[in-house]
C-alpha cells in the first residue's frame, strides 16, 4: 500500500489540543444545562423573596391571634392555625397505629404470595391518585354516607387516607433497616416471630418511623384540595380543638386560598403572603425536627 508522504499528512499526530469547534459545543452544552438547572433555583428564590417582601410587614402577634374579617388590616389566621393543628393531631393519632401495624404486617409477617403483592401494588398505585379525588371520597363517604358532615373529623379522616400509604412505605423502610441478626438472635431464644417483631424490631425501628411520620404529616399540612372538597370552610371565626371533631373547621392553606381569591389587592398579596410565611415556617419547623431526630438516631447506633 504505497502512499506518498503528501497524502499521509492530515493532522499532526502529536497535536492533542481539542479542536476549536468541539470546545465551543462543549461549552455551549454546559451553559445550556447550567441555565436549565439554575432556572429552577432562581424561581424558588424569587418565590421566597417575593413572599417575604410582601408578607413580612403583616406578620405580628395580632395576625396569629385574630380571626378573619372583611378588612385586611384586622384579618388574622387564628382559626386556621387552630384548625391545622387540630387536623394534624387527629391525623397523627389515626395514621400512627394503622400505618405502623400495616407496615409491620407487610414487612414481618406477610407470606410471599400473590395477595401480598397485590396489596403492595395497591399501596403504590394509591400514591399516584390526585389528592382532590381523596377529597371526593371524603365528601361522599365521611360527609354524607357516614353522616359526619363537613366537620373536622371528615377532614381528618380524608387526610388520613391520603397520607397512610406514604407512612406505610416509610415505616417499612425503617423496619427493613433493622439488621437481620437482631431477629435471628431473638428467634433463637425461643421467641415467636410476633414477640421478636414487637419487642425488638419495632423499638429499634422507632426513630426511623417517627421521622417518616413527621415528614408525612408535614406534607399533609400543605394539602388544600382534599379538605377543600371534603368541606373545610374559609370564613370561620372560632377556634378548632381536636376534642370537638364534629365542628366545622378551617385550616391555614384554606385561608390562603380564600385570601388569594378575594378581589382586594391587600388580601391577594400582603395578607396572603403573611399567611404563607406562617405556613412555610410551620413546614420548616417540622422538617427540621425530623432531621434532628434522624441525626440523633444515627449517632446513637
Amino acid at each position, binding site marked *: 500500500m504505497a502512499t506518498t508522504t503528501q497524502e499521509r499528512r492530515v493532522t499532526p499526530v502529536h497535536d492533542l489540543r481539542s479542536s476549536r469547534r468541539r470546545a465551543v459545543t462543549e461549552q455551549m452544552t454546559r451553559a445550556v444545562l447550567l441555565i436549565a438547572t439554575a432556572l429552577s433555583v432562581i424561581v424558588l428564590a424569587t418565590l421566597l423573596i417575593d413572599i417575604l417582601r410582601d408578607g413580612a410587614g403583616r406578620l405580628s402577634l395580632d395576625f396569629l391571634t385574630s380571626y378573619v374579617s372583611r378588612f385586611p388590616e384586622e384579618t388574622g389566621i387564628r382559626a386556621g392555625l387552630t384548625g391545622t393543628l387540630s387536623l394534624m393531631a387527629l391525623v397523627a393519632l389515626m395514621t400512627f397505629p394503622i400505618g405502623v401495624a400495616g407496615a409491620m404486617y407487610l414487612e414481618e409477617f406477610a407470606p410471599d404470595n400473590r395477595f401480598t403483592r397485590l396489596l403492595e401494588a395497591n399501596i403504590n398505585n394509591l400514591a399516584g391518585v390526585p389528592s382532590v379525588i381523596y377529597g371526593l371520597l371524603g365528601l361522599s363517604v365521611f360527609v354524607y354516607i357516614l353522616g359526619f358532615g363537613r366537620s373536622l373529623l371528615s377532614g381528618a379522616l380524608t387526610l388520613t387516607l391520603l397520607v397512610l400509604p406514604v407512612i406505610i412505605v416509610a415505616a417499612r423502610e425503617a423496619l427493613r433497616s433493622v439488621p437481620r441478626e437482631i431477629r435471628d438472635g431473638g428467634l433463637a431464644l425461643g421467641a415467636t416471630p410476633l414477640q421478636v417483631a414487637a419487642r425488638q424490631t419495632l423499638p429499634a425501628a422507632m426513630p426511623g418511623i417517627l421521622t417518616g411520620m413527621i415528614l408525612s404529616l408535614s406534607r399533609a399540612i400543605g394539602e388544600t384540595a382534599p379538605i377543600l372538597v371534603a368541606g373545610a370552610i374559609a370564613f370561620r371565626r372560632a377556634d378548632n380543638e381536636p376534642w370537638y371533631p364534629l365542628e366545622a373547621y378551617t385550616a391555614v392553606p384554606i385561608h390562603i386560598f380564600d385570601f388569594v381569591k378575594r378581589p382586594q389587592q391587600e388580601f*391577594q398579596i400582603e395578607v396572603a403572603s403573611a399567611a404563607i410565611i406562617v405556613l412555610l415556617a410551620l413546614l420548616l419547623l417540622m422538617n427540621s425536627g425530623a432531621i434532628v431526630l434522624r441525626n440523633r438516631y444515627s449517632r446513637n447506633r
Partner: protein
Amino acid sequence: MSAEPTSGRISLTARRKRYGERTVLAVLWLCAAVSVFTTVGIVGVLFFEAFQLFRIPGVSIVEFFTDSAWRPFTDPSSDLFRIGVWPLLNSTLLITAIALLVAVPLGLGSAVYLSEYASPRVRKTVKPALEVLAGVPTVVLGFFALTFMTPLLRSVFGTDVVPIFNAASAGIVVGILIVPTIASISEDAMSAVPRALREGAYGLGASRRHVALRVVFPAALSGIVSAVILGFGRAIGETLIVSLAAGNLPPGDLPALNPFQQVQTMTAYIVQAVGGESPRGSVTFQSIFAVGALLFVVTFAINIVAQRIVRRFREEY
C-alpha cells in the same frame, strides 16, 4: 422446665399462650388492608355517584362524552343546559401540555447537569433546593402564578393579549411544580448507570457531551420515561394552581389551543362546584363525581401505561 429426660416425653408442641397472637396478626393484616378498602372506596364512590348523575332526567351520558359545551348550572330541561365534558378535558390537556413543555427541558437539563457535569459542591446546594421546591404547597404556587407569573406575562406580551386568568400562567407554574419530580427521578436513573459504561466511552475518546447525551441518557431511558410520565400524571391531577390562576370558565370554542385564554380544568371545576355546597342529588353535586371519575380513569390509565413502558424499556436495555 429442665430438659432432663428423667420421665416421659418432652412436649415440643405449642403451648396455649399462642392464641392471643393470632388475633394480633389478624389486626395487623386488617391495617395493611386499609389501603385496599381505600381503593375500593374510591372506585366505588366515584362510579356510584357518577352514575347517579346520569339517572337525572335530561342528563345523558352520551352527551357527557360527545357534547362540546359545559354549562351544567342550569336546569337540565332548559335549552341552555349542556353537559359535554370536552371543554374541561381540553383545558386539562392544554395546561398539562404547557407544563410539560416547561418541565421536561428544565427537569431533564437539570438532571443531566447534576449527574454528569456538576461538582459535588454545586450538587450539595442544588439538590436540596430542588427538594425544597418539591415541598412547597401547591396553594403557594397558585399564589405565585396569579401574583407573579400573570403580571409578568401581561407585561411581556401585553395586557390585551393576556387576560388575568389564563392557561399559560397556570401551565408554566404547574411545570415548575413537576420539575423536581422529573429531575430527581431522572437523576437517580442516570446515577444508577454503571461507571464502567461511562469509563468505556471516555476511554474511546468521547467528550463529556457525548457521554452524557449518547451513553448515559439512553442507558437511563426507562427511568427517564417513567419520570416524565409521573410528572405528567401529577400535572393532570393538579388542582390549586389551576383554580387560582387559570380561571373558572371553560373555553367555548374547541379545540382550545390558545394558551392566553381563560380555561377551566376538570380539577378546577370540582373545586368551584363544591364551593356552592349544592345538595346531594342535584346535577351540580353529582357532576362533580362524574368529572372526578373521568379524572381517576385518566390518571389510572397513565399509571398503567407508565408501568408498561418502563417494563418494555427495561427489557430492551
